[in-house]
């Protein structure tokens, strides 16, 4: 990976030899990669491959055992608050204060980022309308559907106009129309220069919106490149990213598994 001064300016995120273990399980093993401004980088891998752990280490939610991560030059170990100030995070499962209304929660998040009343109001109104939450904004979140909670989570992650957006399975629970809105939104944000790290199990989505993808398995980086590069490398031109992924992760022969389950 290039990491000179000029690339540091272009890079939104530089992860160097990130490692994390839980007990005897090596969740992430010396992972190194970069994410450029305006780029959407897909993080793919089977369950338990270390994607979420990687994302959490980048944002300072988990402390790496070794290695480092810099977000716009801010080291997550020495300046975690600085990293959080320029980042937005959409977790795999919405973790909201369910006794607040949607709008109260977003107002709370705005205060955490030190946003003024006018900025909060503008941002909240804009997203409530775009994500079709208006009409429910004053209801307590405990009464929201899974998809509505996910929309609130996405809005919260975008409240402070983040320069790095980390999305962990961010389309979970969304109806097709909302999922399309979010995908278009991510592309638009990338065009505006926001760097996006995006994990998903739905490989069609990764293929559609990601500029590059990283494939992880058991905490290791298996492959990195654009979808076209990965197809070429796998010797599968014309095939889908899903086929490439299954081949690379060694799970392409699923027939036996299905037969065992239906026995």
């Amino acid at each position, binding site marked *: 990976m290039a990491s000179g001064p000029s690339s540091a300016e272009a890079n939104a995120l530089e992860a160097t030899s990130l490692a994390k273990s*839980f*007990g005897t399980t090596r969740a992430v093993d010396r992972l190194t990669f970069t994410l450029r401004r305006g780029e959407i980088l897909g993080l793919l891998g089977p369950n338990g491959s270390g994607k979420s752990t990687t994302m*959490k280490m980048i*944002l*300072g*939610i*988990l*402390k790496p055992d070794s290695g480092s991560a810099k977000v716009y030059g801010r080291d997550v170990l020495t300046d975690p*608050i*600085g990293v*959080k*100030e320029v980042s937005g*995070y959409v*977790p795999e499962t919405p*973790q*909201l*204060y*369910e*006794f*607040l*209304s949607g*709008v*109260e929660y977003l*107002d*709370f*998040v*705005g*205060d*955490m*980022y*030190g946003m003024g*009343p*006018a900025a*909060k*109001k503008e941002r*909240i*109104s804009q997203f409530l309308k775009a994500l079709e939450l208006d009409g429910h*904004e*004053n*209801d*307590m979140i*405990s*009464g929201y559907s899974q998809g509505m909670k996910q929309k609130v989570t996405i809005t919260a992650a975008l409240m402070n106009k983040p320069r790095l957006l980390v999305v962990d399975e961010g389309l979970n629970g969304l109806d097709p129309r909302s999922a399309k809105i979010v995908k278009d939104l991510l592309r638009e944000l990338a065009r505006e220069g926001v760097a996006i790290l995006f994990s998903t199990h739905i490989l069609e989505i990764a293929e559609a919106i990601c500029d590059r993808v990283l494939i992880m398995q058991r905490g290791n980086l298996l492959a990195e490149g654009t979808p076209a590069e990965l197809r070429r490398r796998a010797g599968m031109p014309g095939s889908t990213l899903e086929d490439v992924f299954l081949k690379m992760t060694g799970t392409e022969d699923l027939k036996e598994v299905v037969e065992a389950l239906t026995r």
Partner: protein
Amino acid sequence: MKPAKVLKISDVLVKSQLRSARSGRFSASFLNRPAAVVLVDAIAFAVSAVIVSRLVALFPSIPGFSLATIARETLIFLPALLPPMIFVASLLFELNVSSKFAASDTLNWLPVSQSEYVTASALSICFIYSILPALAFGVTLPIAGSQGLLPVWVLAALLSIVALFTGALLVEILRATLNRVSTSAMGRARRGALFVRLAISITVIVTFQFFFNPLALLGLLTLFSREAAASFLVPFLWPSSVVREALDGQALWLIAFAGLSVGFAGFMTWAAVRVRSRFWSPSPVSVTVSHGEYTPSSGALQGFGFSAVESALIRKDLKGLTRRREMVPFLAIPFVMTAAFLLPQFTGVGGPRGPSSGAAGFPLLLVGGIFALIFSSVSIGQEGKAIANIYTLPVTPRQYLRAKAALALTFALAATAVMVVVTSVFLGLGEREILSALLLAPAVAVEETFIGLGFASRFPDFSERPRPRFVKPVGMLVAFPTGVAIMLASISPVIISLVAGSIAVDIGSIYTILMAAALIFSVAVSLLAYRWARGGIANLLRELGV
């Protein structure tokens, strides 16, 4: 109903209670198994039995006491004591299970009948709190044995188990009823409904606590021992009546009350099954908390020196207090404690009657301190799974600590102020005691807040199922005696003054010095506890637990 299935469900419910605070990989540790509860019970039984047997050996030398009378009263009291104990414990710890999981619980879609579930759940409650009967049996066994009443003790123990099960069934009934009140009954509710629910819930808790208070029950038993007919009116006293009739050799009445006791347990089972059948699956609640266009939050709290982040954290927690059902028991604490302290004053049971000196009234001044300790101990764990927000948002440990301390202190100081007034007006504190209260009670509230936060940051329990606990049991077990011990040390001048007064010794000349020393001690403890809490929070926010 299949007994094997009931036992299996009960086993799972107990395990979910034991393991809820633990995360990560499953541990085969002995402490994760229900057998650990049995071992703790056995130790509690043996230790209490040994201690009491030693005391019983000393007893004949104490003039004015009749061991025979004590044996009779404790055996009668035993079956009546356990249901209120388990009920009060359940009010505080069992009824805060969030109803949001009720409809999606695995047991709802497995082939389990309502009667099997209710019976298993009641059994699991009995098992989880089984240390209470273990201690009670250990205490009463040597007393009964010394009087040759072992057969009656066995009868009392068996009836206690029936009574305990009946108390657990009452908890099941109340749990299902509160589910109904809290969810489907509210429908599409407004913010006002939240306050009504809060007020009703606190009233229910305080009322039940008041009427199931062992002191109140003792008064009732005293009454019914003089007026045997009264026992017919209170089904929870029927098991005690069986023991009384056994001691009096009234076989016919014994059989009658035994039949009534078993019948009542059967009726309670039927009622609990009926209530759960009707209310088992609460409808999702949609509560509208405001109307009209969104107005960004004001910075009113910033006028008190709080940053925007701290203000937002305080506002968020304040809303949680008034809107979350699981927080209600904690808000009820000052009322429950006040009722518990005032009960002996006005009933004459277990203490002096009527208005008295500060000796009887001073414990009320500790309500603020105990409230601060408990309230701050649960203040971090009450974030639940949403604690993840604190890790992803730019919040510093200092901001988090200041916000948590501010809310706990506000409530504790308010409770302290009310208690100072109540004590002064109703219990006739002297001038010196009022002055002491004004100085020491707020100091105690401050120190207990930071002690509580120290434990909250080191032993937080963010699990929400099977019920939120907010602080790990070991944390609360250490926090409570530690906090109370420090509190007693802080008010030692008043204790010394009261003790000296009771033996007619005037310590007027050194009282001021003692007060100054106590205040310095309290300030020093507060500073140390603040640093300890700050360290705990910094450590906690370093990395999200997995």
